[in-house]
């Protein structure tokens, strides 16, 4: 029990976020390939005259490629704990246990991760802008919030509860290598990667509003823009609160970053 209490929520969150890092990396790399190929084709097809024909066929091919790669991402989330502790757990010096012993059966880990992988799989398989898709995609976020609430109150994920597993600190881990500031940097990077316009189309239907046509703009749900701004605002406020020592400076920074985001959010809402 003492081992469980030793693992702080920040460590748990950090390990989970590190495990999630390959997903935005894959997403962004797909975008790099797609946009680069599109640019090359643009310049090579008689200065753009046949580009749109090529663009349509390439878009379809890239769309299919997205599915393949994101399916691999889902598979990764499902299997990440089967070959010993996952990447995040290794870096944070944690490991999974069942009744005081290391988990030897891969099936237990697969079942533990099943809910997360399933909700993520549902999420990425509905990229279009219909209401049903949007509802399904939001289910993933509801699951993530539920998971977070579960960890904050009981120090265990939903999967851990179902499979009766616990997260403990590895005895041979040297503490101090990953400190509070590091947690913050990881959170910043992840938050930015997740809410970035260039990755977001694959997560939320929030391709930069200005670059879409009027019809598409109407279809965009304002809640996804709002949620990304709110996540950013409160995430940064949390970081300032953790990082900054002098009170006056800390609170000014927190108020400023919240106001900045609320202003942008309000503007988007009014424009919408």
């Amino acid at each position: 029990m003492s081992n469980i209490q030793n693992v702080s929520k920040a460590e748990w969150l950090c390990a989970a976020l590190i495990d999630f890092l390959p997903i935005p990396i894959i997403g962004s790399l797909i975008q790099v390939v797609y946009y680069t190929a599109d640019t090359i084709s643009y310049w090579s097809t008689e200065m753009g005259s046949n580009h749109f024909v090529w663009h349509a066929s390439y878009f379809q091919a890239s769309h299919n490629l997205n599915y393949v790669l994101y399916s691999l991402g889902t598979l990764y989330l499902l299997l990440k704990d089967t070959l010993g502790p996952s990447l995040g757990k290794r870096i944070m010096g944690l490991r999974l246990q069942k009744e005081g012993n290391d988990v030897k059966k891969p099936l237990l880990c697969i079942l533990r991760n099943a809910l997360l992988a399933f909700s993520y799989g549902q999420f990425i398989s509905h990229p279009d802008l219909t209401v049903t898709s949007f509802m399904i995609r939001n289910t993933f976020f509801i699951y993530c919030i539920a998971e977070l609430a579960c960890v904050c109150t009981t120090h265990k994920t939903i999967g851990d509860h179902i499979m009766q597993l616990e997260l403990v600190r590895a005895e041979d881990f040297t503490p101090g290598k990953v400190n509070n500031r590091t947690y913050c940097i990881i959170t910043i990077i992840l938050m930015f990667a997740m809410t970035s316009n260039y990755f977001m189309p694959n997560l939320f239907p929030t391709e930069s509003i200005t670059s879409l046509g009027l019809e598409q703009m109407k279809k965009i749900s304002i809640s996804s823009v709002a949620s990304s701004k709110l996540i950013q605002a409160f995430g940064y406020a949390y970081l300032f609160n953790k990082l900054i020592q002098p009170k006056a400076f800390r609170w000014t920074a927190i108020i400023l970053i919240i106001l900045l985001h609320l202003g942008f959010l309000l503007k988007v809402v009014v424009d919408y």
Partner: protein
Amino acid sequence: MIKLNKISRLLASYIDFAIVMNLLMLVSTLANMLETKEIRLAISIFFDVAIFSYFVCKDSIFENASIGKHLLGLKLIKPSSIYQNDLGTNIRNMISSLAILLFIIYDLSARSFEGYIVLLIYMAFNAIFFCYKPNKKLGDYLAKLEVVEDEDNTIWKEVAPEKKNAYITIVSFLLSLPIIDVLVKVSPIIFRMGWGFSEIKAIIRGAIPIAGALLIFHFYNKLINKFVDNALLKKLLVVCAASVMLAAVAKGMLDFSFEVRWLFR
């Protein structure tokens, strides 16, 4: 003379500026939601006058320091005079206030994007001057003022100097993110407003997202290298940041191609 931290000097200005811009954005957005035109106009005028006054008098709030300067432990002095709290600070602020005034005029005539451009030009001009005359903005130079560390300020007394630098770096970086974000987002709108110089317009419109992405990556890279000790984690985070930024640059290149295609025909 005490060597002044450039970032804290810049962040102090940024905080003063951001306080006003935030309030301006919030109030003007809320005012736009009102249906009565007269009330909307009255609110706008009242608020704009308040902002203008704030910008002229901001360095008198904490004797010789604005809110930003006070928080960063700085103050304004006039080396050539024994009277420190004089008209000089207000004269110094007149230049920035004039830029704001132009912004207000555009804002009142509902052409706020041009107003933003005026402000950006002012800021760019100030930045160039700041680099040319280290730690002095145009107003400082004209009013013969200097910004120095305030030894009586207690806010940073118990903080180690290297920690102070780290805090300031992180805060400046995080506060600059939304601005870059907005700049990248609004650049296509700004340049769709029928200004002249089409070639330059097209190139800037294509180049802003690329420059923004590279700037953000540069900051992230610095931050990761400074604070993350774990080698594996460091690599992982750099790869993540780099891939997101590469995607942004690739998208920027595509937009850039669309913008400048007719220049090569």
